[in-house]
């Protein structure tokens, strides 16, 4: 008995033809933004919201972590007596560790902010 062959079907190719030039929109997005149309305002609002969330997130995490320290030192004095390599923990944290943390947080922020600007630029220039 031969295996039943599946009936021939028509296949619909739905993937976009990425290589082909797409018809240009009569109104490029950059013009929507320049002319303050509702669509342009929408583009801008989403960019601003992304950047604001990112900025507040980075600042909130770093500043929030730091701002917890005085409370810890006050209400758990044993923590501030803890020694690292013979130096008190508060000195190590506030005198040394914070600075590379700032640079790392800043580096992360710059990377993410430039990425979202790039995405925004692609969105605007593609359309």
């Amino acid at each position, binding site marked *: 008995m031969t295996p039943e062959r599946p009936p021939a079907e028509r296949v619909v190719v739905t993937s976009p033809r990425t290589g082909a030039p797409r018809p240009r929109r009569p109104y490029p997005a950059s013009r929507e933004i320049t002319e303050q149309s509702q669509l342009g305002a929408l583009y801008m609002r989403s960019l601003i919201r992304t950047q604001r969330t990112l900025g507040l997130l980075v*600042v909130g995490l770093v500043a929030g972590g730091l701002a917890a320290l005085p409370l810890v030192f006050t209400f758990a004095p044993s923590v501030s007596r803890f020694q690292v390599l013979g130096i008190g923990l508060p000195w190590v944290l506030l005198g040394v560790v914070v600075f590379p943390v700032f640079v790392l947080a800043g580096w992360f922020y710059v990377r993410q*902010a430039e990425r979202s600007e790039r995405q925004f630029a692609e969105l605007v220039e593609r359309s």
Partner: protein
Amino acid sequence: MNNTYGVVAVLVVALGTMLVGAYGLRISRTTSDFYVASRTVSPWWNASAIGGEYLSAASFVGIAGLIFAHGPDMLWFPVGYTAGYLVLLALVAAPLRRSGAYTLPDFAEARFSSPAVRRVASGIAIAIAWLYLLPQFKGAGLTLHTVTGAPDWLGGLIVALVVTVNVISGGMRSITFVQAFQYWLKLTAIAVPVVFLLLAWQAHGGQRLNAPEYPVFRQETTVDFDTTTVVHADSDVAFAGRGLVDGQRIEGDGLTLTAGDHTISAGSSFVFPAGATVPHLESLPHTTNANWALPMSEGGEFPLYAVYSLILATFLGTMGLPHVIVRFYTNPNGRAARRTTLIVLGLLGIFYLMPPLYGVLGRLYTPELLLTGDTDAVVLVLPSRMIEGLGGQLLGALVAGGAFAAFLSTSSGLMVSLAGVLSQDVLKMRGVRGFRISAGLAALVPLAMTLLVSGIPVADMVGLAFAVAASSLCPLLLLGIWSTRITTVGAVAGMLAGGLPALAAGIVTISARTSDQWFHVFLSRPAAWTVPLGFVVMYAVSLMTPGKVPPNVNRVMVRLHAPENLGLETNEEPSMSELRRRGET
């Protein structure tokens, strides 16, 4: 301390600054060069310049002095000064550059299109700049006094003169060179001695600071009192010499300072033997070394309030400092502004590793500064104290030169921005001539103020300038950049509601003696109540006056936030890619 090398170092720094400035003068020809270095400064140059300008008297001598006297709670100063740039980077840098603002009043006008907002912003910016120049001049006076014994006002006068001449002749272009050069000079001047000091400390046995005892004199120490001083002795102290204690003239050997408070009159000179417990200024905390090394152990009223107020002021105040803002304009675009700020974070972090070491070593080697109250001098005195002979004197001279560089660079930056605001908003004189006249005026006022101010540590005075900036211009920047709802009325109300109380508190702290009152901390560290006040009033009043939203707010928002390379017409000037595109079509 041998004077000659120190004097030479100070002179070399002052002359070097003027020479580099003169070199800049030959290339700065146009008004645009004068104001913004024609916007051709690369991120590394610009970051060095920001670092050079930002590391002021407070950073170079003040932080070490405060840590020396008060312990690790004062580490929040360097942490906050650096964190301020993280906040600036994440929430302000790129939009501020894209706004095309040169000064804060420019930003206020660009964002709100309102002369009223601009006027209030310039008034506050001028007040902050003067409040910030004051400790620089004070610090210069202190340095020159420590190095040469010259009267206190002379150092301030010299700094004011050098900076005014430099700013008047060179403008911003030369200032960028000078500032970048100053950062590396300052880093060298504070980092090189630290290496030798740590080696010397190891060689002396690496004594630690965890003993439950008060600081003691390591060697026989002569202490001269320039001003009448109230001191506190934790135990009976033997001493010799002559002078006036508690109104009684005493002279000779084998004298005893009994435990308790005493008033020592100006002109007294005493010799304390090695091993004696150091009496200290009555207003400084009465802590043993072990307690000093722990955070939040100083006592005092509302310690948590004081720390959080300091955190708020420094984290949020940096963005509102007039001389910081100007630097962002010299970046070619918003992206470069971000990268510059990131480099600044690194440069500041490296520098701020050093001052705490001076503070700690000072506890061991220069405890007599606790007695005279000249705690800000600890950085200057340590090298020649710890290292004998020529080496110590040369290192001392290096530190003195670095300290002078700190006063010169910060004052230059403040003066440039202050002169910019004064010439545009107060004198209404455009062009190079107005800028020069304003620079002269900018120096005179704080110079006169130094004569009126009593002895507050320089870092505390700088803290007040930060508090005013954080409660007035910071809300303007943050809410202005990230919210479309802020109205002109709200902006003015918020700046005044936050800025005026902070300014008043600062003036009271500087000019009146309130340190023994329970409310002192609320005046000397006002940020924790004035910052929320500024933000809340600005937002609430804006919500109540929805009709006063600037009509072009959406257009301005595009300009602040859209990347330059899109070539949107609202961006202030065409980017390179836009120019190229236009050329092709």
